[in-house]
């Protein structure tokens, strides 16, 4: 390497670096990069990540057992009559209480080793107050010490005290979340299928108009070619999510809007891929067929079609795969599929449910990715 070319080369690198540094500084500031937030926000992300590994899949039915008793506050009247009950019994250390008096609640005959909780139902009010938790022992007994909440003391009267035990029973069943997820994933896959089909059907004829070697080199042919190619490029640059927002206005929220948005995007993407495939066909066989005295239809059927079918099918399958990915998020703007539920779960901070959806997406998308790769390999 000569001396001169060495300096020219490094000089060029220096210029590039000199251009890149301000660009990066500007980008850094514009994109609002703040690594401190990333570290400080980490605790907020911890429950998300820990819940991500515990998706809600199976659930048993929940059983609730509630036993009520009553207590008078303050001690200024006759002892209230506790409601008659069979089965488990609850006894109180006192039948009436003054403010800040301790109260010992004990029970027997309950389900052993089960968590429970005390609730106060205030006389004359709706709703109830949460109080001490407890757990029954192996004999189904418990003792828990509490005092009356200030609100009850203030209100006065005969208040009810609920002893409530909750446990899971019955067989494991798919949780509600899982059922919704499966429903919506089916919708997602079909949404992508319909969009790919509609898009492909429109893209095939359009792709011929967008192929140089098929369009005649006349003024009309060129105009049509340029128009179709520009449409492909412009429509392709608009993300389906944006299209879906628009279609949601047109046909209302729901999977149909998503199908339409993805279809439009598919027409543009597949149209471009198809027309490039059509431009790349080998003219040899066409020449050979023509030299046998075949007419134009026969030339197309025997010379062109066998060459374009494999790439067309392969691109279509590939695009179905892409559309499945996209239809997982198209629900964010009302386009159907799993997206809507996922967003709802995240907004309500139901991270277990969100995790179910995310894992379902991972599973389906990976499976589609794998399947489409295999199909494409076989086709070539």
């Amino acid at each position, binding site marked *: 390497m000569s001396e001169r070319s060495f300096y020219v080369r490094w000089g060029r690198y220096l210029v590039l670096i000199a251009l890149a540094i301000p660009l990066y500084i500007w980008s850094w500031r514009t994109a609002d990069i703040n690594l401190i937030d990333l570290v400080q926000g980490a605790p907020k992300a911890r429950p998300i990540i820990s819940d991500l590994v515990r998706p809600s899949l199976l659930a048993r039915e929940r059983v609730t057992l509630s036993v009520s008793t009553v207590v008078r506050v303050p001690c200024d009247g006759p002892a209230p009559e506790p409601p008659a009950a069979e089965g488990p019994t609850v006894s109180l250390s006192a039948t009436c209480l003054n403010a800040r008096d301790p109260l010992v609640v004990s029970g027997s005959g309950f389900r052993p080793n089960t968590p429970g909780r005390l609730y106060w139902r205030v006389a004359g009010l709706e709703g109830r107050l949460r109080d001490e938790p407890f757990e029954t022992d192996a004999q189904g007994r418990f003792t828990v010490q509490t005092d009356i909440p200030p609100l009850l003391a203030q209100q006065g009267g005969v208040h009810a005290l609920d002893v409530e035990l909750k446990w899971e029973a019955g067989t494991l069943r798919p949780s509600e979340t899982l059922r919704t997820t499966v429903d919506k994933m089916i919708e997602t896959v079909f949404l992508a299928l319909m969009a790919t089909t509609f898009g492909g059907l429109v893209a095939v004829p359009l792709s011929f108009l967008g192929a140089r070697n098929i369009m005649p080199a006349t003024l009309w042919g060129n105009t049509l070619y340029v128009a179709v190619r520009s449409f492909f490029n412009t429509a392709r640059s608009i993300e389906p999510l944006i299209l879906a927002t628009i279609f949601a206005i047109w046909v209302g929220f729901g999977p149909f809007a998503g199908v339409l948005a993805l279809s439009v995007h598919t027409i543009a993407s597949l149209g471009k891929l198809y027309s490039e495939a059509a431009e790349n066909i080998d003219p040899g*066989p066409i020449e*050979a067929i*023509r*030299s*046998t*005295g*075949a007419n134009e239809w026969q030339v197309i059927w*025997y010379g062109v079609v*066998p060459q374009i079918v494999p790439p067309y099918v392969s691109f279509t399958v590939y695009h179905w795969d892409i559309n499945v990915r996209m239809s997982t998020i198209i629900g964010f703007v009302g386009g159907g599929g799993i997206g809507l539920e996922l967003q709802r779960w995240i907004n309500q901070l139901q991270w277990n449910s969100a995790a179910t959806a995310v894992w379902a997406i991972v599973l389906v998308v990976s499976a589609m990715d794998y399947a489409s790769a295999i199909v494409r390999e076989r086709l070539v």
Partner: protein
Amino acid sequence: MLEIKELTKVYDDGTVALKNVSFTVPDGEFLVIIGLSGSGKSTLLRCINRLIEPTSGQIIWDGVDITAAGQEDLRRIRRQIGMIFQQFNLVKRHTVLTNVLTGRLGYTSTWRSLLGLWSRDDRERALRNLELVGIADKAHNRADELSGGQQQRVGIARALMQAPRLLLADEPVASLDPATSHSVMKYIEWMNRERGLTVLCSLHFLSLARRYGTRIIALRAGELVFDGRPEEIDDRRFKEIYGEDAIEVEIR
């Protein structure tokens, strides 16, 4: 008899591929066209069945002016002219049988061919022709599973299907190894001798041309520079055709 009269081809980009080429081919001749790459051999052959439209000049075959034929007539003429190609030009995804059957497209109505309804006669003929070129057992294989030599034999079978009277061969062995080249050339020779086809064959190697041709013409930059019997090409002529630095290579 095939007469080429003052054939000229100028491409859209201004390249002159053929300049006033004239010669006559009597029936039953094995005419070999030699010349360097780009000398106009392929253009000449493609002008004869008008895969390329000549710019001026005439091609008259048995009194019919091919250059003046309308679309319908042209197709009728084309089906009597078989053609084989350097790159074989088979439809790779079709079976060998279907590829051979496409030789009958010029004789088959559009709707029958689009539905793939070949006549029993055509199918039998196709299998016979495949037997003739020795690859009947590959009839149901996909074309791209065959070796180069086998693919070219499919090309020959396809040309045979047309029951042609004239065969155009554009560098039929340029993509094949020497041993396979001879086997393919022998099939072409057989068609010429036994079936009485007139053959126009372009070749790269002079040795092959000497071995198979009954007559040789040579093109250089689109002009006819030699027309005569193989043995007339001596060292001086050879250098005229191929340039000063060329050395003759023997293909066995």
